[in-house]
């Protein structure tokens, strides 16, 4: 049986302060970002989770009312840590940004009502991402009066793998378009941060063919853009039920039904033919899936990144399971 050697959380990743969590749509990226924030906060650290796609998914995850555009405490972590959450409102961020250079006064509100801000972000599609990455950088580098970082770590529930490099490097692209102006100045800071050892880009994947393929492509893209892939976060990992030696045969449809029936009878279960057939079919499907998972692990092993696993939560995700997932991450060395 092929398995990924689980390296866990390396020293290098542990040093990062900006944790960008990306993944193919449908892999549970937001949930994993939430669990990671809790895990990083465990033991008394202060962590900020940032949401950039305007879905209020973080509020749902932590079971709080929709978040305003401010940093709100959403959870306490074991050992005295805390997780705050920020839902970046692009319009508010633009006004905040403008007010750094101009005194807009009440005109800001009027512009908002007119839809002018939405228009401006539409006009320059990258402007949105510039504002988002700019705000993230501000959170990561913010210090208190004593010069200490306000947040020990910032976790970003980032855009999906297909858009991640464009998102992180948007200031680079915009700097080419806007050769002067504040964007130019700001972009240098963001570019420095995201390309430094302070930033790790984690990839959430399931043990399925398509998400794994996208993960591998994303790692190549990140490497190509000189961004640092952090860890692979294997989500919804299900326990293998079949004895390892039975998997291949079962995946080919070879399950000894009469043997199973006899063994079940010995255990006190006298089942109908239909039920035995049903059980065998479930077993074959399970084996095919386990087989595919093994192939996926083998492919992931080739990109040679640290990996941590989050177990499948059959009853869905609530705040309680989020803590369980965080604990699983801490057990695997996340710190």
């Amino acid at each position, binding site marked *: 049986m092929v398995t990924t050697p689980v390296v866990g959380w390396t020293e290098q990743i542990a040093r990062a302060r900006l944790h960008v969590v990306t993944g193919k749509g449908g892999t549970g990226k937001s949930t994993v970002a939430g669990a990671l924030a809790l895990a990083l906060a465990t033991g008394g650290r202060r962590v900020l989770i940032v949401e950039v796609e305007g879905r209020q998914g973080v509020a749902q995850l932590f079971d709080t009312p929709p978040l305003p555009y401010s940093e709100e405490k959403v959870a306490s972590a074991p050992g005295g840590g805390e997780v705050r959450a920020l839902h970046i409102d692009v319009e508010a961020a633009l006004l905040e940004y403008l007010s750094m250079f101009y005194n807009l006064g009440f005109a800001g509100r009027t512009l908002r009502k007119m839809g002018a801000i939405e228009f401006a972000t539409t006009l320059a599609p990258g402007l949105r991402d510039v504002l988002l990455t700019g705000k993230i950088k501000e959170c990561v580098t913010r210090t208190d009066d004593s010069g200490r970082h306000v947040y020990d770590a910032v976790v970003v529930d980032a855009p999906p793998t297909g858009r991640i490099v464009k998102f992180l490097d948007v200031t680079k692209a915009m700097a080419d378009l*806007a050769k002067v*102006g504040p964007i130019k100045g700001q972009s240098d800071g963001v570019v420095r941060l995201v390309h430094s050892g302070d930033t790790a880009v984690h990839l959430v994947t399931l043990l399925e063919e398509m998400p794994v393929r996208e993960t591998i492509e994303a790692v190549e893209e990140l490497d190509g853009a000189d961004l640092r892939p952090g860890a692979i976060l294997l989500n919804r990992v299900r326990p293998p039920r079949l004895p390892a030696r039975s998997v291949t045969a079962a995946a080919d449809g070879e399950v000894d039904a009469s043997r199973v029936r006899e063994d079940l009878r010995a255990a006190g279960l006298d089942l109908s033919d239909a039920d035995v057939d049903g059980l065998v079919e479930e077993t074959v499907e399970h084996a095919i899936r386990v087989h595919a998972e093994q192939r996926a692990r083998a492919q992931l092993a080739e990109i040679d990144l640290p990996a941590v696993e989050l177990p499948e939560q059959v009853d869905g995700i609530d705040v309680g399971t989020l803590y369980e997932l965080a604990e699983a991450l801490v057990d695997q060395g996340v710190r």
Partner: protein
Amino acid sequence: MSTLDVDGLIDDPDTRVIVCCGSGGVGKTTTAAAIAVRAAERGRTAVVLTIDPARRLAQALGLAELGNVPRKVTVPGFDPKGELSAMMLDMRRTFDDMVRAHAGPKRAEEVLANPFYRTISSSFSGTQEYMAMEKLGQLVAAGTWDLIVVDTPPSRSALDFLDAPQRLSTALDGRMIKLLTGPARAGGWGIRKVVSAGFGLFAKAVSTIVGGQLLADASAFVQAFDGMFGGFRERARRTYELLRSSGTAFVVVAAPEPDALREAGYFVQRLASESMPLAGLVVNRTHPVLATLPAPKALGAAANLEATGNAPLAAAVLRLHADRVALAQRENRLVARFTKAHPAVAQIHVPAMAADVHDLAGLRHIGNRLTHTP
């Protein structure tokens, strides 16, 4: 809750367009392809417009190369009663073609060379949706096919598909940009006077942020585009009307997961408020239980077998059955919640395939599951 009759839908000659929509990662593309394959095999002259198919699915449809026009699917062993063509959307080319069709050659070249146009046509978040609509309009106008199956772009929110054309349309509308670029443009002063002084400041601020060059490019683009704009809007309006006509059927696809079903719920409500014809919901990749054995009984027996240690396979069979019962119960609960909120929406549940689909046989198989054909 009634059952969504996919065969009834594709056999009805009045069904001309089937739109598969839903949030990302639920299997829209595969569902669209499976419906098209089945329709062709049942005698329709069908075309499937896919947006971003997985590579192997694209190969299964003979779409190894990116082309922006439909190509007939000729695969050994595929001999449909009707006919199947397939295409993959190339949004940039669709946009370029549209510009060429609407502008004179000189003006078209101007627009195509504009840096702002290049940004909008390749990276604006609504462009893909808009171009999918445009392509759909073209396929309908061509009159070659009697059934068009459309996959929708892989957005996070299913509603983007309906909203994006409007957003892009607003962006391309000249009014705002004339305000922003102000005095340099004819009429700029006139409009400037009636809006608050804050706007001038805002225009200055925006121009400082994005850089004057970008605004100038945008302005040049909008001017060149102005003459074509009426045509664009008219086409978008016609496609919108087409989507509301009785020949169209929306098939909402969702996985039995909370987020996907929530999105499906929003979409269903939105379709109703836009008077767009909903055929029903495909609950994709379910895990029905295949044996009637209750989970507690299975787990008890598994523990007994494990204690003896001499029937590891049977014990595993029982444990994985109990996992499956738990999963099926969760899926049923989630779907029941949707049904309660939307009792009138017809549904069909499509059991998950054990492995990924990457050939026509697999698509045919999904077609069977979509129609509960044994």
